[in-house]
């Protein structure tokens, strides 16, 4: 198992937001975390990473900080870049947990590979903050790739991106899973989640409502319970398109 959560509960400002969640993720899985706003998706990922206090156990949070940093990387929703650093320097931050200090041959190779994979060669020396939003997002993903961890946790990675960028991002995550890594990402677009994820986890009111393949999780009854909506499913050659009505 790459990540095992058991009985994970989180209380924020004295309000319980997560109730005893059990979840186990293996390698090669791209798990989409879906659910309405306030369902506890961000809390689940933050608690799993040990960023916020929780009760229960998280195999990841239990690791010492340096080992954890070489086991899982995290893309927060905020996409913060505080200083006008170059794309190259930004990506190199992913090497902090590794012993080379960012300068060893292994580090250089990981940074180059990440930049190449995200198609950022032309922007290498450019200041990341001066790039477009989509390019900045790619640079931040490259930073996560440079960390070279078996697991990637991403909080709403496609929010605010144009359709082409959304597709590119999800394809990348699917490819990463195909390479044997594990990806856990919260996604609001149910159709895209259904198309790209190998498994969906539906969260509502701090409970796991459903966990499994898209067909099983995106049932009418479950969606009504979770979101209070009904959806229309249109089958297309590329997978189901899901329209809320």
């Amino acid at each position, binding site marked *: 198992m790459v990540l095992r959560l058991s009985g994970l509960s989180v209380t924020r400002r004295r309000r319980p937001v997560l109730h005893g969640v059990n979840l186990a993720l293996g390698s090669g899985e791209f798990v989409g975390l879906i659910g309405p706003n306030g369902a506890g998706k961000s809390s689940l990922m*933050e608690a799993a990473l040990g960023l916020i206090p929780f009760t229960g156990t998280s195999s990841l949070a239990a690791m010492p900080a340096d080992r954890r940093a070489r086991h899982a990387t995290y893309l927060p929703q905020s996409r913060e870049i505080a200083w006008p650093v170059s794309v190259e320097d930004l990506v190199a931050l992913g090497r902090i947990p590794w012993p080379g200090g960012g300068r060893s041959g292994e580090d250089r190779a990981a940074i180059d590979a990440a930049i190449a994979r995200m198609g950022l060669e032309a922007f290498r020396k450019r200041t990341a903050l001066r790039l477009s939003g989509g390019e900045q997002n790619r640079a931040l993903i490259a930073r996560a790739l440079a960390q070279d961890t078996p697991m990637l946790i991403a909080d709403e990675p496609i929010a605010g991106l144009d359709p082409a960028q959304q597709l590119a991002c999800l394809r990348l995550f699917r490819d990463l899973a195909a390479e044997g890594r594990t990806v856990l990402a919260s996604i609001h677009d149910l159709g895209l989640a259904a198309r790209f994820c190998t498994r969906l986890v539906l969260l509502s009111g701090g409970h796991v409502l459903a966990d499994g393949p898209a067909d099983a999780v995106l049932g009418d009854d479950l969606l009504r319970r979770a979101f209070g909506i009904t959806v229309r499913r249109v089958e297309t050659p590329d997978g189901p398109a899901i329209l809320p009505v």
Partner: protein
Amino acid sequence: MRKWSVTLSVLVGALFLASLLTGPAGLPAMDSLRALAFGGDGPIPIVMREIRLPRAILGLAIGAGLGLTGAALQGYLRNPLAEPGLIGISGMAALGAVIAIQTGLSLAAMSALPLAAMAGATAGVALLVALAGPRGGSVTLILAGVAISALAGAGTALVLNLSPNPYAANEIVFWLMGSLADKSMLHVWLALPPMALGAGLILSVRRALDALTLGEAAAQTLGISGTGLRWRLIAGTALVVGPATAVAGAIGFVGLVIPHILRPLVGARPSALLPASALGGAALLLAADVAVRLIVPDRDLKLGVLTAIVGAPLFLHLIWKTRSGGRV
């Protein structure tokens, strides 16, 4: 980066020499340096070794310390407006120093002076981090700084006014503006060891500050401990700013101006900016200290006057940019 560190080092060396060779006595340069290196009879070795050397060393060390802590605080708070002088850390250090002096503690043990200043600086920086930690914005930071500065300034004035010593009340200018005039080697030995320790602590969190570029959460998942970083930064800042203020008063704006100037040159990465800012701060303070001796040779013009003349317009410019939503 490497190119800039060489340039800055050469500049610091030249200004250190200029500081040694500047003074009202107008000594011949070669005689001065010979007297400094080899001693000898007569007053020139005393002037060089007891008066000018400690002044130059303190200018170098305090400038470096202020540049370094400025860059470190900016990196930690992810805010280019952070600076030990402006946000009240130096003011709190001055309050600590004044209390140590006026209660007679520093008379009982010389080390009480830097220790009390460090305690003041610790209180200042801890209060600031609590009020305007990494999640606080520019407005919180500046307001917290204004409040801490006001409190420290009022406390300092109060303690000095209550002193039985007639000269004490006039010292408020020294504590607010800072000066290196007539400091001795004693001050050097008092200030340098804790400052070196503090600088070491701050340089040890360079990579952690780099990681903070991505925000607190991402930095933690890169293996950075938030509490460890915070305590090292608070302790390091207090160890540098406390003794510096105890011997030279509060000198503002060095830690603001230098990182701002150097960021486009050496890169915005805190790990590159920190050592460069130390060199830049040393250069700025040495230059300012040479300038105060050249502008009004027969009076003790305070260093903070010059640094504020350079720094305050830049500060306004930075606030303007923050206001209009631009990144610095």
